[in-house]
């Protein structure tokens, strides 16, 4: 009997020591993985994906679902640094220019497409020509707009088919692109462009292999890039599988062997899967988990949040559509009447950052407080400003939003804030869905104020100003027109020194405070959550996962 007792005691002793050791080991390894971005090489991860809405052609993909996949499989001339958003050369060896109008691009040798062919200068030129050519109807074709000859590649007709008859595009190719040799080509732009290198990192500028031209449709089903991951399979609405490309010669390959984008219809489902360790990374945390920062207790040490290049604004209808808001003083009064901090706290659970200007803080050239006192809530000053302008003549103010997305809460809160400060009735008016909403804005039928958002195409201050507020620009919904602003934008584009270019852009941005074509509301943040199996999760300036730093523990 004694013997038995002793054995039992000894076994218990050993196991408790072993447990202790295991606990220590676990603690230690947790520390090392969370403090350093280490992690082992190889292995596959599963991340949240959504369903790409188009075939996966780089120049025809403007939405994030397909964009996230294309980003992982394509290599571009430049790559954006995951932390700063600054461009770093990837395929490009150098991009040179002395006048911001003639650029010479030299490629690194040895980059290969997933089909084994080498990446050459003509792969870029052909891809960009394809994107620009009007009859190809590529949704990202507008990215080629700065390149000389873009106008001639567009269809000029109107009606049902602008490409028919006299409207046919005059040229098939951009005159501004020329191949010098296998590894060199030149770009000539119509006007001076100060941030060419920054633009070239967008996936619309990815090179396409020779096989693309033969069958673009097949390419869209199984895209071939020159990036660190190659495309394996796509089960529609279910999952997309990528695996490591062994011949990738760039330095942004990372440690992973494979990535699976598991397609979710609902962010709650993805979030629950991450908590249960059945999904590795989700780039969206549902609003239910945002309340009181619940996600921080659900996923301790497994979450991160970061500002991304998205700004929410309120735009005024063009003066000729609705003259009641024409006076900048009225616009400034409205802006000062909005209590951004309280709305962010109560509606967004502090997941937004109040805007102090028109440019996102994640880009190069950002300057804080460009909007000055007009973006600071002050009910008394707002009322005084409105009285100075002679009051509001239109009866009641309206703030339109698309009802198919969660904008009801904040638009109503904003209206209440305006009503409270100015004493003018303000109504948040829903429009049935985003498509109808955009149609009404584009055809200038929308009156009053309407919500507007901007997600940057490339991380540059220019991208938050020129496309939105330059006269006649593609997304100038309020038809803002200020010759001085246009002049500063053009001058900035001509600067070869980035710092001086940024200074000019900042001067242009400062002008917006005087005219208030749009009211800055807040900058978005991306919130990520991940499983206990992965480490090195970084959020890029675009709010996407940086696969170069992600790895298994």
């Amino acid at each position, binding site marked *: 009997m004694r013997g038995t007792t002793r054995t039992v005691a000894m076994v218990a002793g050993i196991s408790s020591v072993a447990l202790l050791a295991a606990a220590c080991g676990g603690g230690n390894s947790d520390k090392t993985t969370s403090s350093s971005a280490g992690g082992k090489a190889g292995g596959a991860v599963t991340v949240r994906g959504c369903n790409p809405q188009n075939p996966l052609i780089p120049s025809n993909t403007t939405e994030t679902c397909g964009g996230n996949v294309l980003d992982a499989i394509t290599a571009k001339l430049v790559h954006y640094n995951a932390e700063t958003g600054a461009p770093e050369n990837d395929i490009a060896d150098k991009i040179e220019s002395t006048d911001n109008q003639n650029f010479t691009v030299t490629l690194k040798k040895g980059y290969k497409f997933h089909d084994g062919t080498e990446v050459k200068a003509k792969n870029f030129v052909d891809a960009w020509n394809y994107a620009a050519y009007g009859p190809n109807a590529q949704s990202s074709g507008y990215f080629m707009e700065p390149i000389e000859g873009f106008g001639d590649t567009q269809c000029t007709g109107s009606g049902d088919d602008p490409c028919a008859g006299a409207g046919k595009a005059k040229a098939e190719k951009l005159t501004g692109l020329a191949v010098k040799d296998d590894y060199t080509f030149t770009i000539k732009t119509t006007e001076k462009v100060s941030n060419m290198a920054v633009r070239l990192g967008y996936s619309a500028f990815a090179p396409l292999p020779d096989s693309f031209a033969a069958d673009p449709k097949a390419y869209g089903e199984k895209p071939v890039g020159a990036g660190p991951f190659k495309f394996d399979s796509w*089960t*529609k609405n*279910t999952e997309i599988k990528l695996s490591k490309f062994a011949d990738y010669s760039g330095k942004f390959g990372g440690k992973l062997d494979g990535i699976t984008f598991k397609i979710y219809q*609902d962010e709650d489902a993805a979030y629950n*899967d991450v*908590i249960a360790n*059945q999904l590795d990374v989700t780039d969206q945390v549902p609003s239910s988990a945002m309340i009181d920062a619940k996600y921080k207790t659900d996923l301790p040490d497994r979450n991160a949040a970061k500002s991304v290049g998205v700004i929410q604004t309120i735009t005024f209808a063009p003066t000729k559509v609705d003259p009641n808001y024409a006076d900048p003083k009225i616009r400034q009064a409205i802006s000062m009447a909005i209590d951004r901090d309280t709305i962010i706290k109560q509606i967004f659970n502090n997941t937004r950052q109040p805007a102090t200007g028109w440019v996102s803080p994640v880009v190069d050239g950002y300057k804080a407080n460009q909007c000055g006192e007009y973006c600071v809530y002050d009910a008394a000053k707002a009322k005084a400003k409105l009285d100075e302008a002679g009051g509001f003549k239109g009866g009641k103010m309206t703030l339109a939003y698309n009802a198919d997305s969660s904008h009801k809460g904040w638009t109503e809160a904003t209206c209440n804030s305006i009503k409270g400060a100015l004493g003018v009735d303000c109504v948040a008016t829903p429009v049935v869905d985003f*498509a109808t909403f955009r149609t009404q804005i584009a055809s200038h039928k929308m009156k009053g104020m309407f919500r507007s958002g901007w997600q940057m195409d490339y991380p540059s201050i220019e991208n938050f100003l020129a496309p939105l507020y330059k006269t006649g620009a593609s997304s100038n919904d309020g038809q803002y027109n200020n010759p001085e602003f246009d002049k500063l934008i053009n001058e900035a584009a001509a600067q070869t020194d980035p710092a001086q270019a940024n200074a000019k852009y900042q001067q242009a941005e400062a002008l917006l405070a005087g005219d208030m074509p749009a009211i800055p509301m807040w900058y978005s943040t991306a919130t990520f959550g991940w499983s206990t199996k992965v480490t090195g999760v970084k959020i890029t300036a675009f709010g996407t996962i940086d696969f170069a730093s992600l790895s298994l523990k």
Partner: protein
Amino acid sequence: MYKYILRRLLQMIPVLLGSTFIIFAMVFALPGDPTAGMCGERPCAPAFVAKFKQEHNLNDPLPTRYAKYMGNLAQGDLGTTFRDIKVADELKQRYPTTAKLAGMAIIFETLIGVIAGVMAGIRKGKFMDNLVLVSTLFVIAIPIFVIGATLQYYLGVKWGLRPVTVSPQATVNELLLPAFVLGSTSVAYVARLTRTNLVENLRADYLRTAIAKGLTRRRAIGLHALRNSLIPVVTFIGADFGGLLGGAIVTERIFNIQGVGGYLFTGIHNRDGVSVVGTVTVLVLVFLLVNLLVDLLYGVLDPRISHD
């Protein structure tokens, strides 16, 4: 019998034509330009819009478009969506998943519902009866997304007893919980229907006669009363199956099941008329077939209902 089936099959043709036309007209009458949201927060280039409209016959008047669509449908082509994906490919992948889910939900609701209904019915006014009535009332009162999200959180996330979401393969094991959630409301209805009908039939003259003739109570209830009581239940289950196929949107979202409901929802949301019409056409067809099956089952349950 065969004549009856043939007649019913022929009757389906006008129903199918009518319903698809109504759906077609309704979907394409919705306001909004399908290309308006396609290029991010900016209008699409005119060339893009023109090519898009031409490819999807959006310039033709509605009757012409419908005729073209039906012409393709007659050849088995359900069309391609606005996103250039074949509707038939999508449905081939989604219908089996949804059918599996709906089938399992039907099994759940029939098994649990009928047993609970019988137990309540034969002990009318006793504890068991009250228990079933109260618990079914409780289930009916709670919205299905609350049941789904709660069970998912506790069984899946917190205790790890069940998979949280369903994988693309949608195995029977993974679908157990979603099917249970999906069938939960119907369980209540089936139980109540069974109970009410059984109570009524237990008072019927023929049952008293059967018992007077010396049949055991078990045999009298099981063979005679229950069989007659099941006719309304079968009608309900038949209609419910069709409803579950198209209406499992909430459950499919919670458990990330790639089925028909979610597809229909995104189709309507994205103004993708072709995918909506294609999905609904197949749904209408399934609905008609299931109803035919239900009508044939009446004859089996009650031989007095004849189809000749």
